[in-house]
């Protein structure tokens, strides 16, 4: 894990310098280079995150919590990552309004995924009363 972090840190510096060199003449290609770096790094990071999620699922099942409750939480986390990635890419290119729209859509979709949890909470409370 730590070896990979060092490698990614070095690649980040190299990518930043290359992006500056390219951006001097061709800013659009420099931005695409930054995007490509983000993709490479995130793919590496997410390939390591599987173990964390497995531990989380294991803990939830051992604690006797309904496993279906974890699904929306994970889904919202993934959606947040995707939304943030897209928003950052749009901001880098300087399209703040597009970034804002993507952010809004992401928020609405995440809320739509999270609503079933809220309703189940309300159901639990009403069963207690």
């Amino acid at each position, binding site marked *: 894990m730590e070896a990979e972090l060092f490698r990614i840190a070095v690649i980040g510096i190299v990518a930043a310098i290359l*992006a500056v*060199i390219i951006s001097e003449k*061709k800013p659009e*290609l420099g931005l*695409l*280079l930054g995007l490509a770096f983000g993709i*490479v790094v995130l793919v590496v990071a*997410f390939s390591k995150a599987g173990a964390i999620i497995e531990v989380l699922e294991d803990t939830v099942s051992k604690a006797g919590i309904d496993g279906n409750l974890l699904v929306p939480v994970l889904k919202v986390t*993934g959606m947040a990552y995707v939304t943030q990635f897209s928003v950052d890419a749009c901001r880098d290119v300087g399209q703040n309004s597009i970034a804002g729209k993507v952010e809004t859509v992401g928020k609405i979709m995440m809320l739509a995924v999270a609503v079933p949890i809220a309703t189940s909470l309300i159901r639990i409370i009403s069963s207690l009363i």
Partner: protein
Amino acid sequence: MDVDLIFKIAAIGILVSILNIVLSKSGREEMAMMTTLAGVVVVLLMVAKEIVNLFNTVKTLFGF
């Protein structure tokens, strides 16, 4: 790790900017424009393929 992608894009960027300078100096502005466009499209295709890869990773990881 897919580091080659970053260096590939950097190489394309430098190559395109050099070609652009050469073609502009020899008075072929429209060809310089075309090389720029071709370079951007090629890199965009490469990046788009990787974006699909990233989103598929997120999908499988977070159980969509």
